[in-house]
């Protein structure tokens, strides 16, 4: 069972959910390049300019660990990364669990598709990232290169979750929020569970519905949890929903 975190955070997102499957599954957690403890040098601006590069990373990971019959649990953008990975290497994946998926965040007026965001909104996000990382580069960069004179910086960094390299984070935001992977949904034959929260402004209900309708084999579960991160706000409900789905499909 491979758990993949979404944009803005790292594998800590799964800390209340993943351990609950460890008795029945081999649980694999990882950080995407640029997030958490990932090797900074593994980032390739070309490869990672689109979600396909992140999907290729997932396939590489699955092959390197020689995993088969993988249950891939992807939150947020990693739901679509899982879709792309399963489309390209279907022989490795048994199930996909898509938590708050969105194949396209931008509205598409030509087709009437409502993703929830306009290009201006995404520019606003990039501004938000820039102003929130203004202090990051000055205060945190010395800790990363190892500042012996200020060891408290290093301590603070290791304690802070969801840290990320600001430049990579910005590009990940662009790759994520400007992506259009609607056509890729039809390429997936792997059975999928779609978990949809209430009041999720990142992946609204209609988007979850869209994903469900365009996948060949999927179950849509509407959760009582609100917001975009049920893995943190409602770990019990999330765990139970995944568990029930996996049991029923065995």
């Amino acid at each position, binding site marked *: 069972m491979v758990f993949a975190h979404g944009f803005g955070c790292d594998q800590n997102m799964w800390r209340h959910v993943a351990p609950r499957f460890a008795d029945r599954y081999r649980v694999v957690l990882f950080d995407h390049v640029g997030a958490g403890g990932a090797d900074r040098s593994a980032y390739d601006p070309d490869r990672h300019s689109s979600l396909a590069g992140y999907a290729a990373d997932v396939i590489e990971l699955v092959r390197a660990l020689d995993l088969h019959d993988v249950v891939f649990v992807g939150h947020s953008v990693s739901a679509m990364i899982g879709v792309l990975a399963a489309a390209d290497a279907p022989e490795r994946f048994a199930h996909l669990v898509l938590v708050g998926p969105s194949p396209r965040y931008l509205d598409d007026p030509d087709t009437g598709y409502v993703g929830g965001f306009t290009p201006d909104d995404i520019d*606003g*996000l990039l501004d*938000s990232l820039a*102003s929130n990382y203004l202090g990051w580069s000055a205060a945190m960069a010395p800790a990363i290169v190892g500042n012996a004179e200020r060891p408290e910086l290093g301590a603070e960094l290791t304690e802070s979750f969801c840290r990320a390299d600001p430049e990579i984070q910005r590009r990940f935001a662009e790759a994520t929020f400007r992506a259009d992977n609607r056509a890729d949904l039809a390429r997936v034959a792997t059975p999928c569970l779609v978990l949809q929260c209430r009041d999720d*402004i990142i992946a609204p209900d209609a988007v979850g519905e869209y994903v469900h309708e365009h996948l060949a084999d999927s179950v849509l579960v509407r959760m009582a949890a609100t*917001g975009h991160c049920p893995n*943190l706000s409602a770990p019990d409900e999330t765990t139970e929903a995944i568990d029930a789905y996996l049991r029923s499909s065995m």
Partner: protein
Amino acid sequence: MAAPDGEPTRGYIRALIADDPHELYETAPCGYLSLDPSGLIVKANRTFLRWTGYTAGELVERRRFQTLLAVGDRIFFETHFAPSLAMQGTVREIAAEIVCADGQRLPVLLNAVRKDDELGDHMRTRIAVFDARERRAYERELLSERQRAEEAAERARALAATLQRTLLPATIPAIEGMDLGTAYRPAGDGSVVGGDFYDVFELNDGAWGIVLGDVCGKGAAAATITALARHTARAYAVRASSASEVLRGLHDAIVRSDDTDGFCTALYLTARAGGEGVQLRLSAGGHHLPLRVTPSGSVSEVGRTGNLLGMLEPLRLHDDEATLAPGESLVLYTDGVLEAQRGDELFGAERLHAICSVHASSGAQAIADALVGEVVGFQRGDARDDIAVVVLQAPPLDVSR
């Protein structure tokens, strides 16, 4: 509690009474919000309402906090702020913009803490909201200043690279009976024009002139001397009867130039291909003597050194002649080679000689590339000085015939 020194003043007592907890909450110098775990606003203080223009009735039990944020900030809130708060219990100094009742945006900084119930379940979130209008304007200025600085640095790099190209020959001519190789590497990131230069040009009588030198200093001032040196060498070379005459002309030009501080070291030589290799006539003005490298790998200096060029003291220069036998190479280099540093360690003549020896049977370009590659590698890519190398080789007999 009493005032710090004895009898409480009237003002102290009035301040104490006015600052009861309720008053403190409502009119604190920051906005206070209490949210339920979904973000729904449970309580908002008067300062927040005053800043944003909302009434309590519009917010409390009606709006989730994230819906007050500009959309970009809302994404950041959902993907970073909320998860961080859930995992760490606190989030500090998050920059965001609140969309006020009149549609205006209020830049704020947010500090949040999560309050749990006895079971450890998330019960409520408290957020302190700080008015950050001026700070954000200042940060934006900093950001755009940084962008401008980066652009200026990029322009400087491009300019330096362009200028550098004009100080070095674009291509090295193919010369019958001689094999020539050149390599150049600027100091640091290449944003400063270096003082090293070299040139190769044909003379009237079938001989070729080669000049290599190092102008003291870097940047625009050094570049003017470098340009002067290169053109002066060419001009004098055409009519000079000896190598030292060319360097003397160079010396005079520098002394006459406006830049009274400028000086340089230089090697000048003429090379003529003949039946028994290449005939050389050379003179050195304060420059490291060139190295003769034999095919068997022995390395020795050629010529005698003279004074720096451009100094006011009397100029002493020598003229020397030498022959490169077939297969022998002459290696000209600047002090960026010898003085390359790794920590306190210098690259030094010993390493230089060893590398020349190892590559003795390579072609001229391969020797030049190997040498510069070794020097750059020695400094782990961080070259403090620029490096120029010119290698002249008399082709081995079996190749030339």
